[in-house]
C-alpha cells in the first residue's frame, strides 16, 4: 500500500539554525499538509498546500515557516531560524481531495538545543 515517507526521522539542530524537513506524499494525491505534535499534546495543523500554493495556514505558521514543492514528488517544510519551542514531532500528510481521509507519514522528531 502506498505511504507517505518523511526524512529524517530525527533532526537535532542548534537554536537559530535553519532546518528543512522532507516529505514524499503519495504519488496521486493533490493535497499536502504539515502538522506538528509537541510532546504530550495534541496534533496541531500548520499548513495545507494545493495547486502549488498555500490554501490554508494556522497562526503557528508565521514568517519563520515556509513550504515548497520543489519537484513532482517532494514536499518540504522549512523553519528559517529555529526556536526552542519548535521542538516537536512534525507530520506530513496527503490526500486525494480536500475533504477525504488524510494519510500521514511517521513524522520527523525535531529537537532544538
Amino acid at each position: 500500500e502506498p505511504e507517505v515517507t518523511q526524512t529524517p526521522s530525527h533532526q537535532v539542530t542548534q537554536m537559530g539554525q535553519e532546518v528543512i524537513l522532507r516529505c514524499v506524499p503519495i504519488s496521486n494525491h493533490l493535497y499536502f499538509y504539515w502538522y506538528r505534535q509537541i510532546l504530550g499534546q495534541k496534533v496541531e495543523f500548520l499548513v495545507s498546500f494545493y495547486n502549488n500554493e498555500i490554501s490554508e495556514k494556522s497562526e503557528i505558521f508565521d514568517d519563520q515557516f515556509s513550504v515548497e514543492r520543489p519537484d513532482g514528488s517532494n514536499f518540504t517544510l522549512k523553519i528559517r531560524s529555529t526556536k526552542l519551542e519548535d521542538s516537536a514531532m512534525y507530520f506530513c500528510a496527503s490526500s486525494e481531495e480536500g475533504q477525504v481521509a488524510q494519510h500521514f507519514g511517521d513524522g520527523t522528531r525535531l529537537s532544538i538545543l
Partner: protein
Amino acid sequence: SQQGEEDPQALSIQEGENATMNCSYKTSINNLQWYRQNSGRGLVHLILIRSNEREKHSGRLRVTLDTSKKSSSLLITASRAADTASYFCAFRPGTASKLTFGTGTRLQVTL
C-alpha cells in the same frame, strides 16, 4: 475554540472487552474521522463518517455521529493487545481542508 475534546483521557481494559471513546466538538463539520497513533509513530486513518451519516462500521470498529449534540463515539469490540494506542478524533470545521484533532484517548489493552 474549535478543538475537539475526548473522553476518557485514558482507558485500560482487558483483552476481549469492548472499548468506547467519545469525542465532542463545537463547530459545524463536513465529516469526522478517527485516527490511531502507536507510540512514536504517525497517525493511521481508521474510519470517516460524513455529517449526514449516523453510524458506520469497519471490522471491529463502530462509529456513531450525533450532529445535534456535536459528538461522536468510537467503539472497538473484542479488543486485542495490539489495539493499545492513542486514538484521536479529527474533524474539518466548515469547508476547511485542515483537520482539527481532539485531545486523544490513550487505550491500554492488557492480556
